[in-house]
């Protein structure tokens, strides 16, 4: 299973073609404005590409709406950890779970139709929160936790949706370096445990390069170069775009 993308789109992404191997931790780097987030948006269905094809696990997903892409197992987290501010930590974690019977309006008033499933999901949520050492915070409003915890929560809740692949858009943005490393390690641990493929946009190259299997470099909407971390480190072209940018 892997993701293949090849497409053209005028503004931010211009003729990108890449492939992410199953089970790998692949990084996407590049200076600001090179189109990385837009690329992720297109893959996850939030934006439409002008042309091109996206394959996920052998099936085309371009043109599908985001909620369907999520259903197929491709999940994206947000750069600014978009938690639902009107809800508690627990609610935020419970939301991504798929096929919740209680979400159907005709089931909702009749508790017996969904209580059992809900309890099962709650236990799972408890485990996720536990692994993030946030279990005690379950009743807190999502606005009452620290920035680092918000990030963790954002990434953590994606796991409730039984993803096969994660698109992580700067998971350590705006977080202190020690915490950043910790977040990364957690992500790695979780994904290894669950056999996830991770495709990560990251600016903290030192951390990314330590854990990534493969790197793509984007510049001005195109893939400049690709390779494993050591190759990228030695590449002159990559150094140039970072210095010049």
């Amino acid at each position: 299973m892997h993701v293949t993308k090849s497409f053209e789109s005028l503004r931010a992404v211009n003729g990108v073609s890449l492939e992410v191997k199953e089970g790998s931790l692949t990084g996407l780097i590049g200076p600001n404005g090179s189109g990385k987030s837009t690329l992720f948006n297109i893959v996850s269905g939030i934006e439409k590409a002008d042309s091109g094809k996206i394959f996920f696990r052998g099936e085309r997903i371009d043109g599908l709406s985001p909620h369907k892409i999520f259903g197929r197992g491709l999940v994206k987290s947000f750069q600014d950890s978009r938690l639902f501010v009107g809800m508690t930590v627990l609610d935020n974690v419970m939301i991504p779970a798929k096929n919740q019977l209680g979400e159907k309006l005709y089931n909702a008033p009749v508790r017996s139709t969904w209580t059992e499933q809900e309890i099962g999901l709650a236990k799972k949520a408890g485990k996720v929160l536990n692994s993030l050492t946030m279990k005690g915070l379950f009743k807190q409003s999502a606005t009452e936790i620290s920035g680092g915890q918000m990030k963790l929560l954002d990434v953590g809740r994606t796991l409730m949706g039984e993803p096969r692949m994660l698109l992580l858009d700067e998971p350590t943005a705006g977080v202190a370096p020690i915490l950043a490393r910790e977040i990364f390690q957690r992500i790695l641990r979780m994904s290894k445990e669950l056999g996830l493929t991770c495709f990560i946009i990251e600016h903290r190259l030192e951390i990314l390069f330590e854990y990534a299997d493969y790197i793509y470099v984007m510049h001005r909407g195109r893939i400049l170069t690709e390779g494993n971390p050591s190759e990228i480190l030695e590449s002159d072209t990559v150094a140039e775009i970072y210095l010049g940018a």
Partner: protein
Amino acid sequence: MWVIDSLVRSVLIGSLYTLMALGLTMTIAVVRLPNFAHAELITVGAYVAVLSSYLHGDVPLAIALSFVATAIVAFVCHRAVYRPMRRKGATMYTMVLASFALGLTIRYILLVWAGPAEMLQIKPKIPLTVLFTIGETPVLSVFVWSLPTAIVLVLVLHFLLHRTKTGKMMRAVADNLTLSLVTGIDLERIHDFSWIIAGGMAGIAGSLWAILYYATPYVGWTALLSVFAAVVLGGLTSFTGAIAGGFVVGLSENLLMEILNRFIGLEFTYKPLISFAIIVIVLMVRPVGLIGLLPTRVIRTTVKHDSRDDMT
């Protein structure tokens, strides 16, 4: 011939709608508030004109007083309600609700004393004379006041927006708020100014309406649907669009309505449906309106898209 009659009325009403639409567009574009109370500003203008005409039958005076009165009311609303709410960080919805509340309050205040004072439907005391006739259609003296005033105002507004420093700043704020803040524009002053202009224009439109017809507490409200259609046609934030929109709506409501009435027998009570149909059609076919200025800001793209997604 009814065609001429209808055309004359279309142009007249169209020019009034244009004035109203311009004021509303300004509030939406510069202050970023869809002022539901805009209708009431028009009504206030209408009543001030009527009252003024009873004191002194001079038309320019009535119009001028309407401008001043409505500008003051708009300014007071801004300072007393909108600005404090903004400073407290009110959401867009809360502001919309507040404008709705303001509008209703003003309207019902008018209704409270209008009945007993026998001013529920009152014409201004202005002598009407027939100046000339086009074919068989008499052109009344009021026509001379409405259309030229409207034209002059539009030109003045254009001059204001394009040739004066304040006007340019207003346009800058409408185009790109963050950028204009960075360049150090005094937003408060711009807001103050916008309210005065938008309010004043609504007032003038109201006074002209009263001169043409009469004043009732519902003047603004009945016009609101048409004004909204004009603004939607114009693309919500475009001034030129509002002008075009105003006349299109004026034409639709008069000439088109006449045609529909004569050939299909559609009764005049259904007139508001025309404006509504315009809104629906624009929404379905070309949501950016006649002149689509800021499409990505106003209209949803195929998939929901937020400014938060516009990062690298």
